[in-house]
């Protein structure tokens, strides 16, 4: 059964049709959710929440749209919400600002070229950069850089206009460059 047909049946109350969609799209949504949240359990929660939201908004699915893109947008939005609430919690618990304090606390780049040249270390650096980002920056960056989504799509998914989306991506890119520039330079020099 095609996705669009499954949506139509699910909208009419056919839970088996919705099950089909869940089974078909869970892997991709988990991958996206993990990239956005950086946490396996959070990613699982996002997948669940996204499907519940999708089920509740089946009537709002545009028939001209692609089901995968629709679910992708819902999951992006859920992950964004989760990131924001997680950072709000962190602020309440220890009063720190995720965007600034986490940035200051994260260790600076290690100058050892051999160690930094390893791809595992590069990945760790990327994780560091992602951890330094605000929810908005991280979501926009993941969707633009890792997922290749357009500015319009990102803005639509995260509820931002194009300018805000661009600014979020720029701030995120600065943080990525700050941690990766020494790694890439040392790799190029060696």
């Amino acid at each position, binding site marked *: 059964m095609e996705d669009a047909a499954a949506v139509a049946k*699910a909208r009419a109350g056919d839970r088996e049709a919705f099950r089909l969609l869940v089974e078909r799209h*869970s892997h991709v949504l988990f991958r996206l959710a993990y990239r956005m949240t950086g946490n396996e359990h959070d990613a699982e929660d996002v997948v669940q929440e996204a499907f519940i939201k999708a089920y509740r908004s089946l009537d709002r699915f545009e028939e001209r749209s*692609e089901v995968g893109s629709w679910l992708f947008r819902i999951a992006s939005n859920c992950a964004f919400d989760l990131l924001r609430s997680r950072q709000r919690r962190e602020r309440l618990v220890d009063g720190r600002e995720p965007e600034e304090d986490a940035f200051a606390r994260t260790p600076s780049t290690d100058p050892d070229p051999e160690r930094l040249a390893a791809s595992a270390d590069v990945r760790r650096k990327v*994780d560091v950069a992602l951890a330094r980002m605000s929810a908005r920056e991280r979501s926009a960056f993941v969707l633009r850089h890792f997922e*290749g*989504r357009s500015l319009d*799509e990102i803005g639509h998914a995260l509820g931002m206009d194009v300018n805000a989306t661009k600014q979020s*991506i720029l701030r995120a890119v600065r943080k990525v*460059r700050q941690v990766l520039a020494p790694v*890439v330079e040392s790799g190029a020099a060696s």
Partner: protein
Amino acid sequence: MNHVSDDELVFLHYGDGPSPESAEHVEGCAECRTRLRALGDELGAALAPSAPPRPADYGAQVWARLEPRLPAEPARARVLRPFGRRPWRKLTGLAALAAALVVAFLLGQRFPAPSPPISAEVRERILLVAVGNHLERSQMILVELANAPTDVPLDVSAERASADVLVSANRLYRQTALRSGETALAAVLEELERVLIEVAAGPEHLSPADLGELQRRIEARGLLFKIRVVGSQVREREKAPPPSAARAS
């Protein structure tokens, strides 16, 4: 004009509407081209975090946890829809970028350039940057598939989704390359397209046998090698001073 800002370079890198002035400046400025390449190298190193693998029946597991939480009935369709709702756009970022570049490239060949004008050289440079990035992204997917262990089933859902996006862009680049007489580039893009289609249309989980077969096909065609060669040629052409600059000096 002053050198292009880092922010403008980021827009140029992602193809998110750099101003014609910026694009033109980068074209003629060795320093800015070097900065753009450095940016590309740094961002190119930022690969997506690897998600922990999920079992083949993950979807069924999600459903088992989800079903008790679902309301008895989904929301019913409303007769009226709010105004201003936009349909989810099908084009992903890469495809949109490809389309914009190709359309700009072709329009530039057919119609007088708008003001401020972008020269054919600048258009070609932008196209080269986009093709270079496209080849890098494609190469990343192929490397992951080519090096994956073949003793267990492999979840390729992310690669499949990426390949799906890249196919559209690849088609446009290939057609543009053909129109521009870039036959060698077009030939490699055609081979790449076949593999991308195969991945995009394939299952989300590859059995060891299927993965082994795919790896053999990638290897037999020497596709990774060809992509690296063409990619480096494209990058060299990017680095080379533009003919106009060479004429001026």
